[in-house]
């Protein structure tokens, strides 16, 4: 039996996104997920090579790699610049006082939230549930042309949904949405490439990539706004006020 390392990479990286909260772990995992997915879709049963760069590959793979890189860069740059302050010069005294109060509240919250294993229990069991469902569904309701492709898209969509469901901060919600989008992207590419012998239509593929990038931009924008406003990305702080 041949081990599909790309499928394992897709599964493992999505699991990291589901389990961990630190963006220094989840963003590289997201990038690796995009890379693994691009090479997974590069299999000859889905697309035939049409360009020669490092080796023979399809343009589709290159597009997916660029999309993944763009998405991760957008999120990483946003995360690296969270601590910067923008537009303070226009704020009145009330706004500045509110920002100072928010910073103090966020600092207190961070200090009172040490590392706890219990925070990882719900995501862990959610991951187990997703694994069970993703392993079973390709045999119960096969949609994609291969069981591996079925597992990949079911796994990505389910981990994405469960990441959103168990998320406690805005960034995790965004990562969950991106995983869901990757799952649907995989399903569409796998199915359409099998149905259309003459090659896939370029506009839906371009729009899919644009959707990933704009989604990352929207998440980054909202994260920047929320952090600028509350000095935290925690959702309970957002809904508390």
């Amino acid at each position, binding site marked *: 039996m041949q081990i599909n390392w790309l499928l394992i990479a897709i599964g493992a990286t999505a699991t990291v996104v589901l389990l961990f909260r630190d963006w220094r772990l989840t963003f590289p995992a997201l990038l690796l997920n995009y890379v693994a997915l691009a090479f997974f879709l590069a299999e000859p049963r889905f697309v035939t090579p049409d360009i020669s760069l490092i080796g023979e590959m399809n343009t589709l793979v290159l597009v997916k790699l660029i999309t993944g890189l763009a998405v991760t860069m957008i999120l990483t740059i946003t995360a690296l610049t969270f601590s910067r302050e923008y537009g303070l010069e226009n704020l009145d005294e009330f706004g500045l006082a509110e920002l100072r109060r928010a910073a103090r509240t966020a600092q207190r919250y961070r200090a009172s939230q040490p590392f706890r294993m219990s925070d990882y229990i719900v995501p862990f069991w959610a991951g187990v549930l997703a694994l069970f469902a993703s392993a079973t569904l390709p045999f119960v309701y096969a949609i994609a042309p291969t069981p591996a492709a079925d597992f990949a898209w079911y796994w990505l969509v389910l981990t994405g949904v469960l990441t959103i469901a168990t998320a406690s901060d805005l960034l995790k919600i965004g990562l969950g949405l991106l995983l869901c989008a990757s799952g*649907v992207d995989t399903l569409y590419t796998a199915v359409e490439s099998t149905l259309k012998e003459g090659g896939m239509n370029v506009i839906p593929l371009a729009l899919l990539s644009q959707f990933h990038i704009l989604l990352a931009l929207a998440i980054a924008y909202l994260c920047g706004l929320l952090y600028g406003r509350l000095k935290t990305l925690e959702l309970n702080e957002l809904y508390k006020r």
Partner: protein
Amino acid sequence: MLYLLLVLFPISMAASTFVLRKNSGLVIFMALGAVIAEMLIAAQIPLDNPSLFLGVTLTLNALNRMFMLLFLMIGGFAFVGAWSLPHGENFVPIGLLMLSQVSAVLLLQNPFISTLLLALTGLTAVLAVVDLPAGTSSLVGTRAIAAALKYLVLMVVAAILMYIAFVLATIFRIGELPGRISLSRFILALLAVSFSLRLALIPFHAWLAGLVEHAEPLVAALVITLLNTSSLLALLVAFQTFPILLTDNAGPLRVMRIGALISTLLGAGLALGPGSLRRAMAYLILYDCGMVFYGLASVSSIGLAGAVFGTLNQTLAVLLMLVSLGLIERPDGRPPGMARRDLLRRWPVAGTGLLAGSLALIGMPPLGGAMSRLLIYQAAGENGWPELLALLTATLLALLALIRTAHERLLGPSEDEATPEPLMLGETELDRPAPRRLDPEPRSAAALTLILMLICLTVGLYPGPLLTTIDAAIHELAFIRAL
């Protein structure tokens, strides 16, 4: 190439207006020019003349042209409204971008592309929800961020469900997997949930209430009118592309109708409950969304005509309501933080506009919604009297809710008529403070409200030309002929 011009011209104008966004007046004029140019182009494009671009067919039929002109008109009105109503720094560029995206949805008759474009419109709208005016001294509200986040998540989920449904529909073959639940039912269920999310049907309505309550009225108006309506037209394209979903699914369609009935009843019932003026308006819109979806789910030519006409009316009525709401909520020179009861006296044009928009939404004659209601009631009558009774009850509840809101917020006695007190010892008339002079309604916004009211009235009094176009377009639909 005119098709591409319709899509790309607003994008280029959006980029230009983004660069010049600090100069609000100039930007609004540029946007109005772009909208007028777009309307001229849309009016000149020959109908049903498909053109192939990168393997995708672009075409414009009579129905879509009507809605494209309507969208452009709505966009133009929103830009005029932006002259005097509060809006974000990037409202005009985002509005133009949304106009480009909905134009593309109308031109590209491909369910996959429409889904992605609808998802992109949702992402664009998120930026407008959290947009603050240029040079503002206040912080963006946490409620606005929460509303934007809710909208983002729900729209992405809707797009994902829709996309999965279309992939399944592509591989679906009749008679496969005999003895098991048909795949077409699963596809229809996915489509029903995804479009319920987009059209804000209860219980998938959370985003609409948050949006109306916490976003600027003009932004809420653009999102509800442009994006919801284009979603409905995309659903028609989906049914047209995959008619088997309807012919194979009489039972699930009944469930969809019942869902729409429940949504209509609950929307009207919630509007009757206590809450802010904005929340009451949001629930009235929810009621109307349920009504329109019922017409669509009835999958008869009468019901569909009612749904399409209802969508057209919703677009006009919601803009009228929200522009009026924006006017009413302007600082009026009186002490803030108090719930006023005399809004009709204080803002006569805006108050009348709010009432007229709400009445049009409920379908009261002689306004625009009456004809659509008649058609939807007729379709409901064909499906049995319980369904008709449920719709009539919902309309009655909505009317009661409007009467209650009007009584509490609009029709009260003037709060400015202070009784003159006698002069105190040693006091003269000159010692007294000058009588307070309250600003009248801004002329441009008041004129816009009056024009919208006039359009609603005209559509209600002379629905014939629109109905003829809608009827002809619906009878051309393949799934209607197949049923």
